[in-house]
């Protein structure tokens, strides 16, 4: 990773590197052609959209968080743009429910991770039983939605419950289990250790942070749920810190998430220790073209730094 000043000006000279090999990673036993994943909750309910996103360049798709039964979610507004490339959302985990969603992805052919969410320990075996025979890579457990009572974060803040849930899930499936954490009312590092101890295969950090916006002209909270989750660029420095600190503490791979808009943001997370990254809010600002732009930027960076594969830069910042 020494700077090579000649390659600075001719970043594309090493044409013998196959860029698809450069970006390929292994994550909790899964091989992915690149480390860009779709963050849960973005465009994540339709198989045809999944196929499109995959063909637009993502390494894998994480579905919307699916609950046992369908949820309508909150009334509008459910997503508020804050300017400064951030969003506030309180969608209320709207999703078609496990039966309908299992039907949706029945013939899935692309690398798909199903995000699951529950309001009690018993929900999770039910969810696994619906999906485990389908052609999916694994699960992401959403323990960190900051704005739905009794789901997500309220579970993630209870360390004993987290342990029980992960152990239950691991006993029901052989597929990799990724646990998604956020900044709640618990020490995220203690939570990460507990997740590793309980046998999970990877951690995604971070989910949105509990936040709020009030419209000054009306004096009213904008989100129908009043409080929601902050996503986008404002999260980035907090997410990078969490990935850095978590990867110092645990050995299982960590997927970085939060405010990744450019290839520099992606590389920053990877240097902090992330094995892969998830993209969400960037889609609202840049559209689907962002995926290939980020991949191109990472590839050029690796070439410039004389790296053969992205794995070489994972966690480099820990050296200092």
């Amino acid at each position, binding site marked *: 990773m020494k700077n090579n000043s000649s390659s600075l000006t001719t970043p594309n000279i090493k044409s013998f590197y196959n860029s698809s090999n450069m970006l390929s990673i292994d994550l909790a036993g899964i091989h992915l052609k690149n480390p860009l994943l779709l963050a849960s909750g973005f*465009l994540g309910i339709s198989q045809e*959209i999944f196929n499109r996103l995959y063909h637009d360049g993502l390494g894998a798709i994480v579905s919307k968080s699916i609950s046992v039964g*369908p949820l309508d*979610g909150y*009334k*509008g507004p459910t997503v508020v743009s804050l300017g400064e490339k951030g*969003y506030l959302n309180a969608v209320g985990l709207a999703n078609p429910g496990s039966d309908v969603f299992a039907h949706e992805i029945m013939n899935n052919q692309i690398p798909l991770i199903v995000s699951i969410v529950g309001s009690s320990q018993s929900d999770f075996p039910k969810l696994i039983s619906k999906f485990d025979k389908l052609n999916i890579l694994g699960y992401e457990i959403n323990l960190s939605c900051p704005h739905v009572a009794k789901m997500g974060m309220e579970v993630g803040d209870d360390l004993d419950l987290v342990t029980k849930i992960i152990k239950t899930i691991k006993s029901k499936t052989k597929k990799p289990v990724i646990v998604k954490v956020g900044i709640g009312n618990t020490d995220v590092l203690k939570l990460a250790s507990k997740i590793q101890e309980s046998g999970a295969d990877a951690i995604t950090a971070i989910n949105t942070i509990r936040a709020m916006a009030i419209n000054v002209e009306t004096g009213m909270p904008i989100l129908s749920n009043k409080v929601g989750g902050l996503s986008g660029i404002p999260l980035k420095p907090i997410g990078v810190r969490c990935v850095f600190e978590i990867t110092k503490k645990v050995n299982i791979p960590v997927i970085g998430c939060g405010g990744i808009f450019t290839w520099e943001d992606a590389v920053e997370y990877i240097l902090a220790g992330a094995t892969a990254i998830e993209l969400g809010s960037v889609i609202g600002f840049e559209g689907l073209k962002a995926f290939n732009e980020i991949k191109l930027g990472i590839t050029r960076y690796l070439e410039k730094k004389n790296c053969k594969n992205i794995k070489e830069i994972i966690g480099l910042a820990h050296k200092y």
Partner: protein
Amino acid sequence: MVLHINIDKIRTVVIEEVIEESPSVKTIVFNDRLSSNAKPAQFLMVWIPRKEELPMSVMISNKKDHAAITIRKHGFGSTSLFEKKQNDLIGIRGPYGNYFNVSKSLKNPILIGGGTGLVPLMRLSTVLSKMQRRCTIIMGAQTQKEILFKVILEEILSKISTNIIVTTEDGSYGVKGVVTDALKYILKKEKFDMIYTCGPELMMKSIYNLSIPYSIPIQASLERYMKCGIGICASCCINDKLVCKDGTVFNESQLSELSEFGKVFRDKSGRPSYY
């Protein structure tokens, strides 16, 4: 200095005027330059404070820098909006979506709309009138009382050669029947080079089907359940397209590939439902 306007941030606007269009339809007028410059078929996300946020096509206003929305009273959200009075505040963001494409070589278009689906056609009519294009309009309503915009439309189109056909289901005004009945009839008599349509999806599907044997190009503005309006939630998806971003307007070749057109839409939770 360049003004960077983030169209996604909610802009609070004062309702300056409320126009009763029919017993169940009202138009709300407000000052907003961005909306006044919207293209035909673009829509706003309208915030009804503490009630709902709904997609609404941008209606024209004859005041400078003003625009409007036209609401049909239906369920909770639209009724809350319908009940707003002059001087009340609402929020808007957008305009969003692509728009009806009007090519310079266009000669004889036909516009077909029903109910509030006429809103995008009003802005389109203004464009056609400025371009001095001849045009035909078929507008449908259930009954005479519910006929929308007829007077304004006549005014907009007064300077060009127009044929305005009104259909009512109960025959209380104009041609008895639905818009497709009138369309079937006129297609046999006249050659059109573009169909523009907005309204109930089954109506648009029938129109699309009618257009095929005549090989008339078509542009249809679709509606789907919209939560974000900015292409991140997929609640508006039709096959692999996002109606809020890739649409709302789709042409005949796109429509031919949308197997869900006229068949499937998704509800609030994302579950598919069938027309």
